[in-house]
């Protein structure tokens, strides 16, 4: 039988990563990181936002890309769930719809790594004259 882990083991992990964390934090500020918000309300979850979010976190970590993946509420594009909002530092946020695993990988490979936008953008960031 494998030994059941206890939370006390977290202290060991903490010591291990503490030095790495310091390096990471000194090198970059959160607003200089790629930020992804996954829409995680009833509509999103029912369409698979949970899998998309887990996939994004795992794949970005696997590829060694520093990014902040967080969850957000319903953005009102329930027809296109799962939706994500991607912010590349210094650029306007872009919202993608119908982001399953394949789409998520395409976005990482093309948009995040090469800066080329891919199909599936929901046009939201236009501004009216009043703003």
């Amino acid at each position, binding site marked *: 039988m494998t030994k059941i882990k206890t939370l006390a083991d977290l202290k060991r992990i903490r010591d291990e990563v503490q030095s790495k*964390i310091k390096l990471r934090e000194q090198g970059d500020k959160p607003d200089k990181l790629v930020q992804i918000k996954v829409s995680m309300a009833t509509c999103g979850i029912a369409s698979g936002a949970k899998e998309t979010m887990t996939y994004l976190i795992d794949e970005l970590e696997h590829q060694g890309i520093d990014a902040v993946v967080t969850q957000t*509420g319903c953005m009102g594009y329930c027809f296109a769930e799962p939706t994500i909002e991607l912010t590349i530092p210094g650029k306007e946020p872009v919202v993608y719809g119908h982001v399953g695993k394949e789409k998520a990988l395409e976005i990482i490979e093309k948009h995040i790594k090469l800066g080329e936008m891919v199909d599936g953008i929901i046009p939201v960031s236009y501004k009216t004259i009043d703003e």
Partner: protein
Amino acid sequence: MKDLSMHILDIAQNSIRAKASQICIEIEEKPDADQFIIRIDDDGCGMDAEELAKAIDPFYTSRTTRKVGLGLSLLKQNAENAGGSFSIHSEKNKGTQLTAAFSFSHIDRPVLGDIVGTLMILFSSSGEINFEYRHKTPSGEFSVNTSEINEMLDGIPIRTPEVRKFLTDYLSANLEQVQISE
């Protein structure tokens, strides 16, 4: 919703939106009494009697981005379809408690599913919120809370890859010990 872990993730978002600082998720498996119970308690902003009456109406939501609010009604429907019941209590500025009971052996009871994934998403984004998870079955009880985890981590965020990996393994291993149903 494909499984109960998704419902839990969904309902917990309500508590987050209600600005709760303490959210408790409890699952109790009672195969002998043929019951599978989910309880979610928070100390968020709560609802008054009027809002509460409308809360399970699928065409009511406090959001402005869309006009339907299906979270609670879907959970209620699922519980009732699986020979169970659903109840919700709330008090303005005190918090909300809800219970969804399923018949344990009912063919229409959705499986619990990837509860570890749900907890990881909630825990990673917990911030100031203390999440508590309890899982009780005849084989034992497992409980975990984020204030304990954060105390151990001493300032390192839960979303750090190494910490995530450890917690995922920790939760899976411990749940495997107590969990009866899938």
